[in-house]
């Protein structure tokens, strides 16, 4: 199901995404300063971060390892690579160049499969250093235009990044959103990044163009400042419509970099192609080529954990759900699929466990799998109703586990035997003959009223499913 309206007419959307990801290293890409978000401004600095004259970069091996992990998880070829300088002036770029990778990146030619089966090509996933952060004060909306001063925080300068560049294989706003969401799950699963879009540790730029099917690629615009998974789709769809409107009114799309404004839901011009910087890339002479050995690459591949797609398939199989169901995707995303499987493994019912975990385990309580397994068994064998089981579950979560049977007993939950229940059902029919007539005539709502009466008279101890069964039995 789509959250977006789609494009009018037979226009085709063409999207490629560039995702910058901060790697979860302890220290920066080229120095020993901490890589930590949220510290006092300009405290995680050193001569290298400050770009002081004479300071030299030393490559962080852990950052390389994490970047290789990203490449391996995205089915890339990991290769010998070099670093280049990308030269441009900006106050929060203290060396006036960014060390990045250019014509020989670490990871090339991979792909990412979306949950719906669409395969998106990965052109490259290269390493680079982050810039510092500028805060413009005195103007409106934090923009540099009209500001009276700019404050520079270099804590982020030199933080290791991987830039993951997709091929222009994405054809809908939904797929763009799914790509970002799936990529995020993968990054979390492999421990490469905390991938928090709201903190900027994962940043998405979208290259958007439109065309008629079969036509050559249209002129693209790059959309920056897309700060949430949700706005990825919104920004792309807005931009595509803007471009279609331009073309349909006889105008043409100009190649531009545009800024997504979450507030007004529009993209705005930042700069056009003519103003683009000439970055004067050249080989960074302060670093030597990075040549990962075959053994290192093999080790990274071997150590790769099971990725979200495979984990969804595994969980779906164990619980009888679809791999694309919300319960399966969200439990895998939260990393609780192993736990659900463990409940199944200790004799519990994995399908019930999936529901419990999805609904009640958002804060990751420490309920031993065996305890939850015991609860699912009580429920599936009919000793507890769904309502009762929920109450016991709340107790388990609150106390980090416990004996489900004992909790149920303490709450006075006991299975109502069928003959007693039958009496209550008969009483309900007698109490509301109107509803009974309607139910027999096939009115589903009427059944609810009768079940409700039984629930009330049993003080919630009746098993709703059993009541329904008895009603149907009596009707026929």
């Amino acid at each position: 199901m789509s959250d977006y309206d789609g494009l009018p007419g037979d226009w085709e959307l063409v999207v490629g995404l560039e995702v910058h990801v901060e790697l979860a290293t302890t220290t920066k890409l080229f120095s020993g300063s901490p890589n930590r978000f949220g510290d006092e401004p300009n405290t995680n600095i050193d001569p290298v971060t400050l770009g002081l004259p004479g300071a030299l970069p030393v490559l962080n091996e852990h950052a390389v390892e994490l970047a290789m992990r990203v490449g391996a998880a995205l089915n890339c070829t990991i290769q010998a690579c070099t670093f280049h300088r990308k030269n441009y002036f900006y106050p929060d770029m203290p060396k006036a160049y960014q060390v990045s990778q250019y014509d020989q990146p670490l990871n090339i030619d991979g792909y990412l499969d979306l949950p719906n089966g669409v395969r998106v090509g990965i052109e490259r996933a290269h390493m680079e250093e982050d810039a510092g952060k500028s805060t413009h004060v005195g103007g409106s909306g934090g923009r540099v235009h009209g500001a009276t001063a700019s404050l520079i925080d270099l804590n982020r300068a030199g933080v290791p990044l991987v830039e993951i560049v997709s091929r222009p294989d994405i054809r809908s706003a939904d797929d763009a959103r799914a790509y970002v969401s799936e990529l995020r799950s993968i990054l979390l699963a492999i421990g490469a990044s905390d991938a928090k879009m709201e903190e900027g540790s994962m940043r998405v730029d979208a290259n958007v163009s439109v065309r008629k099917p079969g036509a050559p690629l249209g002129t693209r615009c790059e959309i920056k400042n897309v700060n949430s998974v949700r706005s990825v789709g919104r920004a792309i769809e807005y931009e595509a419509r803007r471009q279609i409107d331009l073309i349909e009114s006889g105008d043409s799309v100009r190649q531009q970099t545009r800024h997504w404004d979450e507030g007004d839901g529009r993209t705005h011009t930042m700069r056009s192609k003519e103003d683009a910087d000439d970055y004067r890339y050249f080989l960074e002479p302060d670093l030597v080529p990075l040549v990962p050995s075959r053994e290192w690459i093999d080790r990274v591949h071997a150590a790769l954990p099971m990725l979200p797609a495979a984990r969804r398939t595994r969980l779906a199989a164990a619980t009888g759900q679809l791999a694309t169901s919300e319960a399966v995707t969200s439990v895998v995303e939260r990393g609780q699929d192993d736990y659900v499987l463990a409940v199944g493994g200790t004799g519990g019912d994995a399908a019930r466990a999936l529901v419990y975990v999805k609904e009640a385990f958002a804060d990751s309580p420490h309920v031993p799998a065996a305890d939850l397994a015991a609860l699912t068994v009580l429920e599936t064998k009919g000793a507890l109703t769904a309502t009762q089981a929920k109450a016991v579950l709340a107790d388990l979560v609150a106390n980090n586990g416990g004996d489900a049977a004992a909790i149920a007993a303490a709450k006075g939950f006991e299975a109502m035997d069928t003959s007693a229940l039958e009496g209550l059902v008969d009483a309900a029919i007698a109490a509301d003959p109107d509803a009974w007539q309607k139910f027999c005539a096939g009115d589903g709502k009427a059944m609810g009223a009768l079940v409700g009466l039984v629930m009330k008279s049993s003080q919630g101890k009746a098993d709703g499913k059993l009541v329904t069964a008895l009603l149907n039995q009596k009707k026929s």
Partner: protein
Amino acid sequence: MSRSTASDIAAAVRSGATTAAAVLEGHLAAIALREPEIHAFNLVLADAAREHAAAIDAQVAAGDDPGPLTGVTIALKDNMCTRGVDTTCSSKILEGWKPPYNATVVDTLRAAGAVIVGKTNLDEFAMGSSTENSAFGPTKNPHDTSRVPGGSSGGSAAAVAAGFSQVALGSDTGGSIRQPAAHCGVVGVKPTYGYVSRYGLVAFASSLDQIGPFTNSVHDAALLLNVIGGHDPLDSTSIPQQHPSLVDAIQQGVEGLRVGRITDLPEGADPDVQERLEAAFEALREQGATIVDVTVPAFTFGLTAYYLIAPAEASSNLARYDGVRYGMRVDAPDTNAMYGATRAAGFGEEVKRRIMLGTYALSAGYYDAYYGKALKVRRLIHDDFERAYQTADVLLTPTSPTVAFKFGEKSDNPFAMYLCDTYTIPSNLAGHPGMSVPFGTGAHGMPVGVQVLAGTLQEPVMFRVGAALERAVAK
């Protein structure tokens, strides 16, 4: 002028025969006498040096060994970062900047017991061959103050020649140690690229820059290089290995060594310089070396390739001086205008010329024709040298085509100035070591240097030849 060797001094201070303080005072007296005329220094660190010398003497008195350079005075080119002490690169744009950290060589020298007497003058950001490009005025040649000391490390060369310090460090990107060493009559060495850590050396052209010694003798150069050479984990381009002792290497003579004469060497050396080179070949032959002819066809393209590669790297290295940080800022209505105004006021003509040249060489549409082609030439030069070193252990050339020239003689003609480095540049491009050894005098009684070139990490054999030349001069 003091002509004892650095190891003699270290031994005398360690044994208590003299003190670091007494050694230092001798140099400070020489500075007091002639520095106003010579202007070798941007900054003399008399107080800090006295304090350090006293501390070394206290260490010796307490029975500790401060290290192989105990009490040896040293001057540092003012492009090496010294914590809390002005490091200007002889540029207005860095004036007043005090680095918060020491270059690796500074820490290494102090750990070896050396006493830093001051920061020496240079062509702004090491761009030049005469020190005339210093924003703080030129250094004069101690042998004739109407003449330049060479450059860019002219201050360091002059400091050693004038006895202001026992030894000095310079940096060599295209000849900036060897050429001033030749002009000032001292020994100057550019080691193999990666031999000495560049951490804390303010970059001019990162793939070419290398720190090296100025000394009165080949032995002192060997001793100093033994101390500052070696792997530094802070410099990714430093060679990850231990280097053999060069002091030990020069115990060996040159018998059986093959000394190469480059038959296709670019012409242009003055006759007096050429005559000294011939004498050097003869002296080595007399000591048992064989003279062999080699060709290095790409040698002649070195200058052109260099003046694309070095400015290209410099344009990037010097972009950080934008007025946002460091001493100088010229206010303007917006950031871009501030960058422009600051850089226009802060950089001298030669620096601006090279930034323009380098920016152009790297620009989209020109990269392949200029920078890209220069990189190919660089590879050719390296390969040609490697081929020559299969038949010769070392090569001998003039260090500079002329003796030290007069002030103003070339300063209006950048290309004439660039030609000073014809013989020194190719080894920087190849990453190979080279040294200049004083070998008598030429026109106007000025010193002439002979350059010994060798292959990657062939410092031991290069030093053996250097020592043999020195012995021949002493005879």
